[in-house]
């Protein structure tokens, strides 16, 4: 296994922009990338003259795709700039670009050292990506994501990205009785300014009832740089520019989000934070259950899995380089990292091509009292 500190670049974008992104990835010689379908939620204005008792804002879901790949830090900047300019991500509503540092254990090299960078692309001197952001990831029972999405949009944070997954946890140890506990989960990812993250987490925990058993968890991952999708409302606007456009312009001018302030005085609950890491692995479809069990036997409290596509451009085109994989992530105490990783790497289920990704968790709302997932 090759261990490396790499940069993970994630692009969540409108479905229509997929071909452009794939072109950019090909230009940079990114041979391995992962993707999955998702939905971006926004608020849509309806005049509803025929039903004045209804709220004018409804949730509007848009087909989106989430792509990610791993690259070394030197090349990351140039790729980020190119993606940003080619896909026009500065314009809100087109997508999100995120980059973060992760430790990756992989059976193969994920980043080819090709020469295209020096020939075609040079990192731009001006970095248009913003700093000071974190990513919040909420995992809720299936069907509850829209509640969380409404809160996020109501807070004016950014457009959240949701997708389906499965939970592996204590339910698997209940025998056939496990069927009575739904394993289907929804994952919601959204970007928040780091200085606001704790307060926003508190609000979400209170509103979504994450402090009650089986209602879900939320955790925060640090981002190195990002361009958030701040198109929160679509439809009729009363002014020449929407509030999101104004905020975007201010963020760009100031170069960060520190100018933003929020009043959270009403909140009283304390957030319980622990030193945690987010340990993820990507494996062949059908193997995640067994690997999750291995991790759980070594101290992982539970895991969430979602299906993703894997594109290997270096594969023989006649065979087809596109296959389905499973991405499993678990938030575990840092002290358990070594034993879990060691157990995973020794596992008989670990096949060639498995990638283990480790990222630090900034804070975590870990309220697993009586939790059966």
């Amino acid at each position: 296994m090759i261990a490396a500190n790499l940069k993970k670049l994630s692009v969540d974008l409108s479905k229509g922009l997929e071909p452009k992104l794939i072109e950019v990835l090909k230009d940079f010689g990114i041979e391995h990338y992962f993707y999955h379908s998702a939905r971006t939620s926004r608020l849509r204005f309806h005049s509803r003259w025929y039903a004045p008792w209804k709220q004018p804002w409804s949730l509007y879901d848009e087909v989106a795709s989430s792509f990610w790949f791993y690259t070394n830090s030197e090349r990351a900047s140039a790729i980020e700039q190119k993606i940003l300019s080619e896909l026009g991500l500065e314009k809100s509503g087109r997508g999100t670009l995120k980059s973060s540092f992760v430790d990756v254990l992989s059976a193969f090299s994920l980043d080819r050292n090709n020469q295209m960078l020096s020939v075609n692309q040079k990192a731009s001197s001006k970095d248009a990506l913003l700093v000071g952001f974190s990513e919040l990831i909420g995992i809720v029972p299936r069907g509850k994501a829209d509640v969380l999405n409404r809160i996020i949009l109501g807070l004016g944070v950014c457009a959240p990205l949701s997708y389906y997954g499965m939970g592996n946890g204590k339910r698997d140890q209940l025998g056939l009785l496990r069927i009575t506990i739904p394993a289907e989960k929804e994952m919601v990812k959204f970007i928040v300014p780091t200085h606001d993250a704790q307060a926003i987490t508190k609000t979400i925990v209170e509103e979504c009832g994450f402090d009650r058993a089986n209602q879900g968890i939320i955790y925060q991952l640090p981002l190195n740089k990002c361009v958030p999708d701040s198109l929160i409302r679509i439809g009729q606007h009363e002014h020449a520019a929407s509030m999101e456009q104004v905020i975007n312009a201010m963020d760009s001018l100031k170069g960060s989000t520190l100018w933003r302030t929020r009043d959270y005085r009403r909140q009283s609950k304390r957030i319980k934070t622990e030193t945690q890491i987010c340990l993820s692995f990507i494996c062949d479809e059908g193997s995640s259950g067994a690997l999750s069990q291995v991790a759980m036997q070594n101290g992982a409290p539970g895991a969430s899995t979602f299906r993703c596509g894997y594109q290997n451009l270096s594969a023989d085109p006649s065979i087809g380089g596109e296959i389905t994989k499973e991405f499993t992530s678990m938030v575990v105490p840092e002290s358990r990292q070594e034993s879990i990783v060691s157990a995973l790497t020794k596992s008989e289920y670990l096949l060639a091509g498995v990638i283990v990704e480790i990222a630090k968790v900034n804070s975590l709302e870990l309220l697993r009292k009586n939790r059966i997932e």
Partner: protein
Amino acid sequence: MKLAARNTISFKEALNLCFLYASNRISKQAPAVVAMIAYLMIFQTLVLGMPLSQNFSIVVSSLLLILGLAFFLEGLNLGLMPLGETIGLRLPRKRSLSTVLILALVIGIVATFAEPSIAALKLAGSTVAYERAPLLYRLLNQDAWILVFSIALGVGAAVVVALLRFYRSWKLRSILYLVMPILISLTIAAKLHPQVQHLIGLAWDSGGVTTGPVTVPLVLALGIGVSRMVGKEHNQGFGIVTLASLFPIGFVLVAGFVLSSIDPGHSKLGLVPALSEFFTTSSLESASRLSSDFGTTLEKTLSLLTTAIQAVLPLCLLLLFALKFLIREKIKRRDEVFFGIFIAIIGMFLLSIGIQFGLSSLGTQVGKSLPVTWQSVSIEENSIEVKNFDHTIVQHSIDSKGTIKSFFLLEKDLGPQRIWFDPASYNASNKSYTYVPQIGPLLAQPWSGLALALFVFFLGYGATRAEPALITMGKKIEDLTAGTLKSKLLERNVAVGVGLGLVLGLLQNLYQFDFVVTITLVYAGIMILGAFSHNDFVDIAWDCAGVTTGPITVPLVIALGLGLGTQNDIVEGFGMLSLASSMPILLVLVQGLIARSLVRNKL
């Protein structure tokens, strides 16, 4: 170090979990079924003013229908679909393309033989007279085996082509642009043939009817698995249901042409009498046997249990065989899969009882009463026999033109009521007079037509909302689109489409529009809209069409078709189902185009 020991929970907690689980599943199915039954009951009694018989049986059967749906859908989710998906995922890795395709062909054929839906076609054609349409009569009776084989081969070929599509990354749209003109040409050729023309409705209905509640989820799961494994484009596994609905149309029409050329005289004995005998005593007879008064309730119930086992088990055994001997892998979560198959059979059994003794019986009563909206109908079950009828009580009246009418007064609960005297109802031998009350027409034209159209629309809408295959498909689509296309919204759109399709079918039935022209125009519209739609939406829209005609909709539509067909003296009542399945395609395509334009405007 093993930290996670086996979780133990108390018996009370386990019971609580089971109760929550069961109540959640049942409560999801209850609204659609209750609304459907209540709608039909209210329409029959309050709107049409007709009596409703077997009330208790209908209420109990409706409860069984709800339980059946809940059990069946859970069985599909736990057992059948994971099994299909596992085979779809593993088979392409372990076996060659030819093995995959052979298995696909066998699955398609077994699915058709196993599903009891083909019997519904026979029921729909029960009014066909040999003298008026000998070829159609033979295909539904003596030569039913030819019909079954044609449909089975059609479904088998469709599954093969659909899987090949995933391997070769063919677009469904391209296949449709090739297949649809062939089907329309065959239909026009059939229209010009004096005998085969009667098969057109049957052929178009056969496609939709054969993709039943077990076949659809199973082949869909298989397709999703294979597409995920071998798909080179963003293929999502859709298209199998579409092709399985379309291919049988061509195969049945071709069979009609061949049969007509081999035996132009259309002997009433059938092509191969031995096979005819076998098939008339086999499952194909179940529909007519069940619809008649043959057999006791126990016999009917046992027959339904056999049908349920026959619908689920052969396909599951085939898939288990493939897993064991072709893929050589153990079943993951074996307990869950076997439990799923078991409850799917129980669910199918309860569902069949609910449909047979509840929904179908209610639908037949409403179907028979429907003509009361535009014409007068006799209510035989409310007839009164007046004994010792005294002729002297008959009185006469005269109108301005001098026409004399006779009447007498009959004592009823609300006092004496005037009854027109009909000499034919008087039996002189035992001096009794039989009075058969009549009702209708309730509305004058065009209001009766409008009322009928509204009834049919809501009937289609309500029945479709309860269709198990559509519910399963909706959930799969929601999964694959990451929730962008919500299952509830899709179910609603498809249900509206079926409602509109039934209204179109009703108009076609009442006003005798040419079926070929109607279906050609509808599909031409679909093809034009499809040209502007995104590939994913084309796949989803077409697959939705295949799942609309399931066990809930079919008996109701057939009851409706028979009721209307008998009144209108139509040779056969086919065609309504195919129109009902075509309109949802249009609506889903429109939904896709709207969503696309919103995204395009934003970008």
